[in-house]
């Protein structure tokens, strides 16, 4: 199974939607709440070149925002 990292903030609705989407599909993921850890925030900005959340890192493939099609594609569904 591919490693999935999601960068989130606590009350971001799209972050919740993305997590729900992955849960429903049966994928496990590591959540990095950038609100609670400035190191993760910097990491997210460095990886994606922007401030929007969620950012999904699927083994190096960076997806900004909730995009079911892009996530499915990156997971080779």
């Amino acid at each position: 199974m591919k490693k999935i990292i999601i960068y989130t903030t606590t009350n971001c609705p799209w972050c919740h939607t993305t997590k729900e989407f992955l849960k429903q599909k049966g994928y496990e993921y590591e959540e990095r709440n950038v609100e609670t850890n400035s190191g993760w925030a910097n990491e997210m900005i460095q990886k994606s070149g922007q401030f929007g959340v969620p950012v999904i890192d699927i083994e190096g493939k960076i997806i900004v925002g909730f995009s079911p099609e892009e996530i499915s594609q990156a997971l080779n569904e």
Partner: protein
Amino acid sequence: MNKIKDSIIIGASAAGLSAAIYLKRQGIDFLVIAKEIGGEMALSGIVENYPGFPSTTGVELTQKFKEHIDKYNIEITNDEVIEINYFSPKEIETTENEFIVKGKKSDYFTKTIIIASGSNPKKLNIPGEDTFYHKGLSYCYVCVLPLFKNKTVAIIGGGNSALEAGIMANKICQKAYLINKNPEFKGDKFLFNQVSKFNKVEIIYNALTQEIYGEKFVHGIKYLDLNTKEIKDLKVDGVFVHIGLKPNSEFVPDEWGIKNEYREIIINELSATKVKGIFSAGDVTNIPYKQIGIAVGQGIISALSTINYLNKTKK
């Protein structure tokens, strides 16, 4: 062809989901079509004026709504509506109609429609706005402001969302400028009284934002001081635009004549439009107060009016 439904609800936020609960309980055959659940409600930060929930968040409230529709096995059809129109044209305003709802993924057919498509944030339409979107500029303080810990931000707007952003910024940021083009705030006094006491939040009135500039990320904004007619500069790391909402009504035909000059859907006290079979509720309507509680109430009215209409037109 998809089977003709009794009703289609467009939108799955406070108004659409409230309507769905009422239609379901009356055994109406309907669909809810939406791109996402929650809409602008989900983007609300702290919510403290929705009765029964002394202090909650938009995300939590959306989750509660979701639990409620799940109880009734109401599913959301994931699609984006691009057009609605008559399927079998008849005399407008005099006889019952049938409608086609064209989505990006499929076409749907129905006897009635509840338009509960809500609204989206308005844009400033100034230089730099598109360039720096997600590069320091955001329309969602709830999502992105936490990334500006100990930074300086500008919050542009004069309503509740701008004031709420100011409250959050006071907790997180080193400094926040609250830029209001008017001489006073339109938002709740309760919120304004809090913000006006904050040391970290500086309110600038009569300030018309002209430009957002930077390099890779935002470095600052320029605004016109309407008192002195001077262009002034503020060095900021982030810009949060909360200047109001634009109704999502593009898919409603202009020739129906049910939109006002702000593109809001014109409804009567029964949430009905002048086109028979077309109802509307929530932020997309011409009702002036855009509140979650009001959207819920209108959603319920639109559902009850739909049920009444279907009963009267039943053959």
